[in-house]
């Protein structure tokens, strides 16, 4: 491939990662509070559809983003409501919602398929975009992409460095103890389910108004929600590590286009599904890396140990468990 440029490649990775990143960060925050929102894949499609249709009808891109984030929060709020107040399984409700919202998006959105519509324009950052190499890679995108990058730091800082973040983590680890300390776990879980949902909704809008503009069946965002859920585990419920995972995944996605050109003998379908077995493979490695025999073997191998320490993680202790005041 003659038109291969590292700058263009990296810039497209940064852009392609934006919606995955937003969804992953949103889900990380939600899961930190102990709620698992399995409805991501459908939510992203529904909010993508809403963003496109609202932006098209009102001719206002901002309203599209607002609508999408509200849709995301609404669906996440339903998962939390079913879990907290109706004592139903989060996994069951999330799964049903993922199928239902996807079909809802296809049903309501079908008249708007393949229509030309509004799209977020590029917005290079003044001065910063003039920096050689880094300017081209990082600072010649549009607003949602910048937002996704900023959110990595904000999420990390909020979760690990603020008082509210501490309360969030304590509810996810031990709601009973949090309750004893005067925190209302139900309220905290609801709030962070909604916050996470807002970000997931924005991810949908970023698809239909920036990365893959327009609406269709399929839209092109299918499967992203499941990827984001896997990335949360891959990132060990840490926003920064999860973000790295999102960039890695986007890199694979973008590279698959190049690989198809370089290795035409390997069919395109292999590259499209490659990230999924890779994700499983990494999860298996992470599991084995935590075994005692492996830890002993890696004891005098500093490089291996560092890699393992970076990969190993634990889920919030009460993830997916229902909390009841008794």
């Amino acid at each position: 491939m003659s038109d291969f440029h590292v700058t263009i490649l990296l810039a497209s990775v940064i852009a392609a990662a934006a919606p995955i990143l937003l969804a992953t960060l949103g889900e990380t925050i939600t899961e930190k509070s102990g709620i698992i929102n399995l409805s991501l894949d459908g939510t992203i499609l529904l909010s993508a559809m809403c963003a496109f249709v609202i932006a098209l009808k009102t001719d206002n891109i901002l309203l599209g983003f607002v609508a999408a984030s509200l849709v995301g929060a609404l669906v996440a709020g339903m998962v939390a409501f079913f879990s907290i107040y109706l004592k139903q399984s989060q996994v069951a409700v999330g799964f049903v919602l993922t199928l239902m919202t996807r079909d809802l998006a296809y049903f309501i959105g079908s008249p708007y398929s393949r229509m030309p519509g509004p799209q977020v324009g590029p917005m290079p950052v003044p001065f910063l975009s003039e920096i050689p190499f880094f300017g081209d890679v990082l600072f010649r995108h549009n607003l949602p992409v910048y937002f996704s990058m900023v959110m990595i730091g904000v999420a990390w800082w909020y979760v690990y460095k603020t008082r509210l973040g501490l309360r969030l983590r304590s509810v996810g680890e031990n709601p009973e103890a949090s309750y004893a300390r005067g925190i209302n776990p139900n309220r905290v879980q609801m709030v962070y389910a909604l916050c996470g949902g807002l970000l997931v909704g924005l991810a949908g809008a970023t698809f239909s108004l920036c990365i893959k503009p327009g609406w269709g069946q399929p839209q092109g965002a299918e499967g992203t929600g499941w990827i984001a859920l896997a990335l949360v585990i891959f990132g060990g419920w840490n926003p920064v590590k999860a973000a790295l995972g999102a960039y890695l995944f986007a890199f694979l996605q973008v590279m698959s286009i190049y690989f198809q050109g370089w290795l035409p003998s390997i069919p395109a379908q292999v590259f499209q599904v490659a990230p999924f077995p890779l994700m499983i493979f990494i999860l298996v490695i992470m599991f084995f890396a935590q075994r005692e025999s492996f830890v002993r073997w890696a004891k005098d191998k500093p490089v291996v140990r560092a890699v393992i320490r970076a990969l190993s993680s634990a889920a919030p202790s009460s993830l997916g468990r229902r909390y009841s005041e008794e």
Partner: protein
Amino acid sequence: MADYVQNGQRISAGQYTETVGDYIREGVLTLVVVLAFTTFVLFIAGAPPLDAYYHIFKGSLGSWGKFTHVIKAWIPLTLCSCGLLYTFRIGLWNIGVEGQVVMGAIFTTYALRFGIATPFPLVFLALSFAAGIAGGALWALLAGFLKTKGGVHEIFAGLGLNFVAQGTVLWLIFGPWKRPGVASMSGTEIFPTDLWLPYISSLRISPIGLACALGALILTAAMLRYTRVGLYLKAIGNNPNSAYLLGLKPNRYMLIAMICAGGFAGLAGSMQVAGVYHRLIPSISSNYGYLSLLVVMLANFNVWIAPLVAFFFACLNVGSIQLPMMLQLDSSLSGVIQGTLVLATLAVHAWRIRQKTRGARP
């Protein structure tokens, strides 16, 4: 931990008993919620709601021809639901059932390809069913091993394998198994008619397919109720730790449950290839795997209610195919109705329990 109080006794949610009147009240309330939401959605889409319902009904039960299509959808849905009963019983979320259907279809197609232009098509047809069952079971076993040996949650293992199975189908259709000439989304070449699942031409229904579905139901009911395996699955599903202390090996029974689920799902894939499409197509599973998860949930994990729910869902799926033709609506309305139905059932049931036990809580 006691969740509710009834007649002064602390009981868990599962032990909460309801009268027939409760069930009727809940059922009516659920239907009202579903109809209200669906009508609202149709209103947003700018469609006449009554016409839409009418076309779904007429398109599924309006004629014998339509009814045979419903049966063709009911068979794989029922088979998958039977399989899922095993995995749900032990507390596994076998989301990989979708990929297991696809793998069953791939293995069936592989076996059938050897049967082209041979003097014994029926032998190969039977072999292809065995291959389908094996394919689904293998794919499920892989997810099971990832869960028990690799520490990967079954939802993610299953989902990953679903995507891999789907990628494999596309690769086969566009690569090794492509039609002579040009590969296309319409699938592989159609098999000769002697490799089709035999059906009664006057009724247009395959007795073998029906027998498989009914046999699966009876077998599953018997397995879960009368055999040791069924009892152990339930024991482990209810309390893995105490089952382990009793000397049961949860991992072994998880794998058994996965193999059963995968086998039935694989058979459903065989039905799709040999009985419905007579070739391998990209959407060979028709989403029946995912849909059967909803079927089993709505049936409250009951083996005799599941086929009834499956029939209703099959009607919705087949009937909604009329929507694009008649009303220029998308056929995904069926999925909206099905999902809403499950959610509304969960919500109404939980809400009524909350109402009845309010104030009685300690």
